[in-house]
């Protein structure tokens, strides 16, 4: 049966068809839907671990226990998991271990666009890279076969376009696959103290040698000979962009990007006149081919940053390039990709950045923080959006959990006390905030930490975590209590606030800033989308009385999507000016309003009230 599937759904399906029954992960765009889909298959165990390092360790444990284990994360998640990663490469596995790294060229939803093919090379782990959903489903199976045959963890690298594109997949029946589950005592292989690690280190090189030979005959590394004037070496999604732009050229399509098949590359080079290497991000293949003494064209004409598309590939190959590094080809943006359409004048259009939802609990908290004279170290989550105007509630965002360590470090070097607040979400805090919070207690910090606890992992689409009370597969479980945890860590000042109460939130944070020692404020209210899902809101939408609004713009300071500004001159009805300076009024699109009352709390003229009747 044929089905349209995203790359992520296809990876989950492939794992299921291959009889995989164990998976662990931490959510992160563009990888999240792999677990969302896998967890729904019959007879599988799937868990959200608190972070990627734990997820990988869980996977390693399962593999050592004889299961075939799948571990899923986004590209920056591999940074978190890098510690166990480099050493599990030495030990190898028992059952089978495949790690998905979902990279995000263009940073659609990430803080950087690191190229994780580099991890495969430095950790000495083979890496496969599918180019569409059909290959994604097949390659996950191949990855497990390689893992077992060569006693190695295997990477499967996806990118946003592979993960989130849909294409036609032929479904197959799942195969039951035997596993020899149980414990094995083999310290020479699994206790990586120096004496044991040194011989294992040699095994790694032997393995890479075998994998090099395997790569030469691996059927997914394939040469397609056509017009021999130009040959293209490529892998993953860029293969499709290239085939779209240049269907008649010859191709070396690499299904495995590490290790590279050197003999096959030489063979291809001998058959074509000029070679281009088409790859997004780093010149990973290009540099290795050049090091073999083969002349190829790569980053001289292709951008270093951002994802490609057929237009970018076409322009790079047919365009007039000097061969020198050209900064103008470095920039790519989503609406301009170098093709030739209608010659339109450039329009200055208002941008449409993502925004916090109407009724989002983060809005009240960051409204307060933005108005306080403090530096807010932020973190990764929906709330990162609050750095923008008009809230301006955040001054930094580096990586998951960084807010707390940074707040502490900044507090230590700034003379004036009570100037730093670290803010992060509930899932982010669990991911990597507990250790730095303990550090604040141990090293006598004066900073304030705020956990914006919206009871879900909102950014990636409502995943459960250890403080929601449910597992990935919907079982009821223990629920982490942030207040108790803080007390145990030794924090004496723990406060819980309702971020929809602006006045109280402000006074509590100010009190805690003036206090000696570390404070933890838990800003607690469910995500607006979660509340809708659980039908937990019984709020009435609000509206503004144009005859009472004085045009003070206080409500606009919330940056709430339903609230907009209307100039008096553009009004259909005549509005009496309440002040000499008044030039407009605020209006609320009530059909869109969630009734959270933040704007009502800020309105000093009492102009905002509940919608009455069918307004």
């Amino acid at each position, binding site marked *: 049966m044929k089905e349209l599937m995203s790359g992520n759904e296809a990876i989950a399906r492939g794992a299921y068809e291959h009889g995989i029954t164990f998976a662990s992960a931490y959510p992160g765009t563009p990888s999240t839907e792999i677990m969302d889909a896998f967890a729904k298959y019959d007879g599988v165990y799937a868990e959200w671990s608190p972070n990627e390092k734990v997820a990988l360790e869980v996977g390693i444990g399962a593999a050592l226990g004889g299961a075939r284990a799948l571990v899923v994360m986004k590209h920056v998640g591999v940074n978190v998991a890098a510690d166990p990663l480099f050493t599990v490469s030495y030990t190898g596995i028992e059952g089978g271990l495949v790690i998905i790294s979902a990279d995000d060229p263009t940073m659609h939803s990430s803080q950087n666009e690191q190229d994780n093919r580099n991890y495969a090379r430095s950790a000495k782990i083979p890496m496969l890279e599918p180019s569409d959903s059909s290959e994604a489903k097949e390659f996950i199976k191949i990855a497990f076969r390689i893992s077992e045959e060569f006693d190695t963890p295997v990477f499967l690298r996806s990118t946003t376009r592979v993960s*989130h594109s849909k*294409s036609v997949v032929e479904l197959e029946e799942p195969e039951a696959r035997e596993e020899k589950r149980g414990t094995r005592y083999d310290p020479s292989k699994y206790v990586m103290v120096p004496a044991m690690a040194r011989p294992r280190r040699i095994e790694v090189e032997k393995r890479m040698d075998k994998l090099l030979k395997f790569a030469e005959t691996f059927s997914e590394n394939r040469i397609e000979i056509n017009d021999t004037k130009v040959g293209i070496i490529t892998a993953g999604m860029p293969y499709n962009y290239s085939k*779209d732009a240049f269907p008649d050229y010859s191709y070396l399509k690499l299904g495995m990007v590490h290790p590279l098949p050197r003999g096959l590359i030489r063979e291809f080079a001998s058959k074509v006149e000029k070679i281009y290497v088409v790859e997004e991000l780093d010149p990973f293949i290009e540099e290795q081919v050049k090091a073999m003494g083969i002349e190829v064209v790569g980053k001289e004409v292709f951008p270093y940053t951002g994802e490609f598309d057929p*237009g970018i590939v076409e322009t790079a190959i047919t365009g007039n390039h000097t061969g020198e590094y050209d900064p103008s080809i470095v920039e790519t943006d989503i*609406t301009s990709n170098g093709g030739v359409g209608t010659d339109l004048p450039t329009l200055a259009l208002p941008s*449409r950045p993502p*925004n916090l939802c109407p009724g989002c609990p983060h809005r009240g908290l960051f409204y307060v923080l933005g108005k306080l004279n403090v530096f807010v170290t932020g973190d990764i989550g929906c709330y990162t959006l609050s750095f923008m105007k008009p809230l301006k509630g955040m001054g930094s965002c580096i990586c998951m959990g960084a807010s707390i360590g940074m707040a502490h470090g900044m507090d230590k070097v700034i003379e004036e006390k009570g100037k730093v607040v670290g803010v992060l979400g509930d899932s982010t805090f669990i991911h990597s905030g507990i250790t730095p919070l303990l550090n604040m207690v141990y090293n006598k910090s004066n900073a304030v930490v705020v956990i914006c606890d919206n009871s879900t992992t909102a950014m990636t689409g409502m995943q459960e975590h250890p403080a929601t009370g449910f597992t990935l597969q919907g079982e009821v479980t223990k629920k982490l209590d942030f207040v108790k945890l803080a007390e145990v860590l030794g924090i004496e000042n723990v406060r819980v606030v309702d971020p929809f109460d602006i006045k109280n939130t402000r006074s509590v944070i100010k009190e805690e800033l003036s206090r000696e020692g570390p404070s933890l404020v838990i800003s607690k209210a469910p995500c607006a989308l979660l509340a809708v899902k659980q039908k937990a809101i019984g709020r009435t939408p609000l509206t503004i009385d144009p005859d009472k609004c004085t045009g003070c713009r206080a409500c606009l300071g919330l940056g709430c999507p339903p*609230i907009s500004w209307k100039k008096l001159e553009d009004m259909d009805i005549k509005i009496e000016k309440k002040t000499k300076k008044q030039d407009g009024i605020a209006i609320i699109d009530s059909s869109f309003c969630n009734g959270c009352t933040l704007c009502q709390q800020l309105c000093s003229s009492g102009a905002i009230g509940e919608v009455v009747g069918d307004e």
Partner: protein
Amino acid sequence: MNESVKSVLLVGVGGQGIIRASDILSAVMMKAGFDVKKSEVHGMAQRGGCVSSHVRFGRKVYSPMAKEGDVDILVSFEKLETLRYLKSLKTCGKVIINNEEVYPPSVNLGEAEYPSDAIDFIKKYFKDVKVVDAIAMALRSGDKRMVNTVILGVLSSYLDIKTSVWENVLEESFPPKILKGNIEAFRLGRGV
């Protein structure tokens, strides 16, 4: 260039049902016997940002995204977003526009103007431009949220696919409770 491949680009604002619409369009094209690929960006889009979804179909489709200037039909759920993606169209490309305005934050704050002459501007450069009041039609079918189904109906009249194929896919896409309204919304759109 792969001439036999056709490209439809659906654009708008998070929450307008664009991803759902492009899923349905893709399923219809697959049922009609084409190879299909579609691509969009998830994640931040839920939170009010721009959404764009490419659907490409033909005998064999490689890239899930069309290059700039290679889109056959631009289906826009929001006026301003039409302007943003106009460059993606072929010179002879067709435009379907839902006559709705969703203000971005800078317009809400009174810092930027919402373009007032978008439709005239588009008509100056493209011959085949259809503006539809999809919200009104969706409301006639019973729910504002069926805007995407109305627009699919409009789009369907540009593609040579039997109504029965579309309606089959609609039946598979919606629960019985809201199916009738969606079929009605689709037919209203197709009749435009």
